[in-house]
């Protein structure tokens, strides 16, 4: 069994880069871990971005997961310059008390997964609504217009749920810090919901709005539907920058 307190020098750490069959070690908050046991670090690389043989403390904040994933690999030492590393609890994620805390302890899946799972639905439904409307206009087949209406309803139903889970994720995993992507999503997501809800109400009140021909209100209704596309793309884009951050010049924003 590895000595968890073995002193490892920065030179030794750099040599354990996982390349050419070498060991793959990473440091996090002065502790050194053997990530070579994980299939996600084959060849010493993780996600094509993170490299073994380095101190990843600064990079952890960019990951879609927290430092708790390092509990799945063995600690094999501490950085040599460090005499007494801080308690590992310092790197543990925020956990509220009460029923919610107990629930999250029992089902860690609830911590990060609900929002990424739910956002699929408003994204696709609100892109499908204008797409099927255009298909109707191109083909004249009214069933496509009905499908667009059903998708629009699906989008309006799921958007509030996605917003709520997003707020929960922001509070729980980012401690509601005013991150730029989140601040933009906080403006764009309610706007998206307002536009989608307006279009849905219009279509409910006037089911023939798009079928009566183009002159008149149909243009405005179609304009509302088409406005969903850039709004959905922008909201999804800012969400992706949180889950899949970039490094280097393109990632610096």
């Amino acid at each position, binding site marked *: 069994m590895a000595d968890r307190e073995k002193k490892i020098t920065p030179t030794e750490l750099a040599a354990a*880069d996982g*390349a*050419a069959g070498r060991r793959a070690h990473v440091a996090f908050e002065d502790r050194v871990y053997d990530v070579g046991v994980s*299939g*996600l*670090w*084959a*060849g*010493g*690389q993780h*996600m*094509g*971005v*993170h*490299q*073994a043989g380095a101190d*990843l403390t*600064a*990079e952890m*904040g*960019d990951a*879609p*997961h*927290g430092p*708790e*994933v390092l509990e799945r690999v063995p600690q094999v030492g501490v950085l040599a310059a460090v005499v007494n590393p801080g308690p590992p*609890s310092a790197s*543990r*994620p925020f*956990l*509220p*008390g009460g029923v919610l805390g107990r629930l999250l*302890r029992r089902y860690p899946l609830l911590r*990060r997964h609900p929002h*990424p799972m739910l956002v*699929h*639905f408003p*994204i*696709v*439904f609100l892109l*499908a609504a204008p797409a*099927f409307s255009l298909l109707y206009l191109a083909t004249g087949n009214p069933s496509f217009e*009905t*499908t667009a209406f*059903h998708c629009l309803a699906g989008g309006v139903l799921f958007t509030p749920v996605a917003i709520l889970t997003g707020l929960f994720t922001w509070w729980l995993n*980012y*401690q509601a*810090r005013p*991150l730029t992507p989140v601040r933009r999503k906080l403006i764009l997501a309610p706007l998206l919901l307002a536009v989608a809800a307006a279009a849905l109400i219009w279509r409910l009140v006037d089911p023939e709005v798009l079928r009566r021909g183009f002159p008149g209100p149909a243009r405005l209704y179609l304009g509302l539907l088409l406005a969903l596309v850039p709004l959905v793309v922008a909201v*999804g884009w800012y969400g*992706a920058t949180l*889950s*899949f*951050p*970039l*490094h*280097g010049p*393109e*990632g610096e*924003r």
Partner: protein
Amino acid sequence: MPGDKPKGTEVHRSGEGASSRELPAWLTRRLEGCPRLKRWPHPAAVHFPIVFLWSTTFFALIYLWTGNQSFESTSFHCLGGGVLSLPGAILTGLATHRLNFPGESGSITWERRLSWLLLALAVTAFAWRWANHRVLLELKGASFLYLALVLTLTPLVTVTSYFGGLLTYPLEAGPPETGAP
């Protein structure tokens, strides 16, 4: 988190075993010029088959419950959307595997196998519904097999995306011990 912590220094390291080393030079240059092409296409593409194939099942059940045929049409249209978007999701998934996960893991293996099975079932159901547009409207005999195919899509999509989700959001090893940050 972007914006509030120091960034890593490199864009794409090509360590030993990283498959990007074997890519054509023009593609490597393109990926280095636009790093998001390396990681973003698959997560973006998978939205579509997940929702369309879930919706195929959902709208078919709504039709069976209400008898409103427009829901059956929507189910068919969603099935079409799923069949069209699934190959793109699979191809971007294979590219993501090659570019970002040089090794093999259980999650990747299962996701790949289930994706092909999902595509086969979805194409079969779509071709069936295309050839016989009344297959679900007259629910008898072989129609139950079509319904079974449609019902199978949802659990299959769920399990496939679960394995994909594990790669981006690994489950935590155990319960944290402390409450406050």
